[in-house]
C-alpha cells in the first residue's frame, strides 16, 4: 500500500521532468534578461546623469544623482532575484522538515543544526508562537528551539545577498558566521539556564496535530509560482523603504561631509556599540529594508562593528515579536532572551571594531 502511494506520487513528476514546461523555459529566459540588464546598470546611470540630465560628475547633485540612479535599480533587481530563489528553496526546506531533523537531537549538536537550518527555513514573526510550540511539543529542547528562533530572523538570506552585492563577500561572510555563532551560543546558554518553567504551561500540553505534508507533491511549476509569489509579496512591501533608504544614502553621498556621521558613531567611543543596539530594538524593519541605512552609515565611515550591531539589533530584537512571544513565554524568559542575544551582538560589535 505504502509503495503504491509512493509510485503514484513519483509518476507524474517524472513526466514533468522529461519535458521542461513553458514556465521553466520562460523563467530561464527571464534570468538571462535579468543578467543582461544588471550588467548595463553602471553605463545606464552615468548616461542618464551626464547626457540626459546634464549634471557634472564634480557637483554634489551630480554624484548624488548618479549614485541613486545606479543603486536603486541595482538593489531592487538583486532583491527580486534573491527573494525568488529563496521562495523556491523554501518550498523544500519547511519548518515541518526542520522539526523532523531537530527532534531528539542532543543539545550541542542541536544548537548548531538549528542555527544553520534557521537561515534557510521560512519563518515570519507572526508564526513565532505556533512554530515555538510545534518544536517544543515535538521534543526539540528549549535551547535548540531558541537557536532556531534567533537564527531565523537574524541571518536573513535577503540581507546576506544584499550585503554581498553592496559590500563584497567579506562583510557578507562576517554577517553570516557571527549571526550563526550568536544563535548557537545564545540558544545553548538558554538551554543551560534550564528555563523550561518560564514557558507557559499550556505549551507543553498542547495537542499538536500531525504534519499536513503540504509541500511533498509540488511540481516545479508550483515551486516557481511560490518564488514569484514571494517576489510580489516582499518587493511590494519593501521597495519604498529601499528607495527612501537609497535616496537618504544618495543625499549623504553628495552633501554631508564624510566625518559628520563618523564623529558621533566613532569606533573610539566605547558607548557607540551599546547605543547602536539600544537604538535598534524599538526600530522594526525587515532585513532588506535596513540594508540601505547600513549602506549609508558604512559609506560615511561608521565602524563596521557598530553598523553590524545596529543591523542585527533591528532585525533580531524586535518589539512586536517579543509581544507575540509573550503569549507563550513568561516575561523572565523573554528578558533573558533579549539579554543573551543583546550581549552576543555587543560582543560581535566590539570584536569587529577591534579587528578591523
Amino acid at each position, binding site marked *: 500500500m505504502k509503495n503504491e502511494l509512493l509510485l503514484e506520487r513519483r509518476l507524474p513528476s517524472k513526466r514533468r521532468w522529461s519535458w521542461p514546461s513553458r514556465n521553466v523555459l520562460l523563467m530561464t529566459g527571464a534570468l538571462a534578461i535579468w543578467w543582461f540588464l544588471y550588467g548595463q546598470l553602471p553605463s545606464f546611470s552615468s548616461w542618464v546623469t551626464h547626457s540626459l540630465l546634464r549634471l557634472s560628475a564634480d557637483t554634489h547633485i551630480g554624484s548624488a544623482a548618479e549614485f541613486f540612479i545606479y543603486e536603486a535599480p541595482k538593489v531592487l533587481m538583486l532583491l527580486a532575484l534573491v527573494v525568488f530563489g529563496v521562495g523556491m528553496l523554501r518550498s523544500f526546506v*519547511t*519548518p*515541518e522538515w526542520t*522539526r523532523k531533523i531537530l527532534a531528539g537531537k542532543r543539545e550541542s549538536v542541536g544548537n548548531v543544526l538549528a542555527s544553520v537550518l534557521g537561515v534557510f527555513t*521560512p*519563518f*515570519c514573526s*507572526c*508564526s513565532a*508562537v*505556533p*512554530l515555538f*510550540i*510545534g518544536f517544543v*511539543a515535538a521534543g526539540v529542547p528549549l535551547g535548540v528551539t531558541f537557536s532556531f528562533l534567533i537564527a531565523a530572523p537574524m541571518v536573513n538570506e535577503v540581507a546576506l545577498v544584499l550585503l554581498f552585492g553592496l559590500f563584497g563577500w567579506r562583510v557578507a561572510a562576517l554577517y553570516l558566521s557571527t549571526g550563526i555563532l550568536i544563535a548557537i551560543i545564545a540558544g545553548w546558554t538558554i538551554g543551560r539556564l534550564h528555563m523550561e518553567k518560564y514557558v507557559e504551561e*499550556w505549551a507543553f500540553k*498542547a*495537542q*499538536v*496535530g*500531525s*504534519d*499536513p505534508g*503540504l509541500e511533498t507533491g509540488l511540481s516545479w511549476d508550483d515551486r516557481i*509560482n*511560490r518564488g514569484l*509569489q514571494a517576489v510580489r*509579496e516582499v518587493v511590494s512591501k519593501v521597495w519604498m523603504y529601499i528607495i527612501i533608504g537609497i535616496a537618504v544614502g544618495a543625499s549623504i553621498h553628495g552633501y554631508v561631509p564624510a566625518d559628520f556621521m563618523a564623529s558621533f558613531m566613532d569606533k573610539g567611543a566605547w558607548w557607540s556599540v551599546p547605543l547602536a543596539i539600544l537604538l535598534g530594538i524599538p526600530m522594526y524593519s525587515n532585513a532588506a529594508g535596513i540594508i540601505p541605512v547600513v549602506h549609508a552609515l558604512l559609506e560615511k565611515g561608521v565602524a563596521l562593528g557598530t553598523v553590524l550591531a545596529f543591523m542585527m539589533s533591528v532585525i533580531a530584537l524586535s518589539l512586536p515579536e517579543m509581544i*507575540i512571544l509573550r*503569549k*507563550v513565554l513568561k516575561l523572565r524568559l523573554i528578558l533573558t532572551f533579549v539579554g543573551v542575544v543583546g550581549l552576543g551582538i555587543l560582543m560581535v560589535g566590539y570584536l569587529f571594531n577591534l579587528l578591523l
Partner: protein
Amino acid sequence: MKKLQILGTGCSKCKRLTEQVEQAANELGLEHEMVKVTDLQEIISFGVMRTPALAVDGQVKVAGNIPSIDELKRMIA
C-alpha cells in the same frame, strides 16, 4: 456546505487570505461557511506551524502562504 477555516492570529496576511478565499468561494458559487480560528491551541491542533493557514472541511490545504484565486478555487471546490 463546505466548512472553510482560516487559521491565524490576525496578522495582515490572515486578512488577505480570508478575502482571497471569500472571493474564490463566491466566484465558484460555493455554498460555504467561513470560520476564523484564532485560538493558538486550536491552530496547533491542526499540525500547522505557519500562519495563515486554510483548512477545508478540517483538512489543511494551505500554510504560510497566500495562493492565487485559481489555486484556491481548486482547493475548495
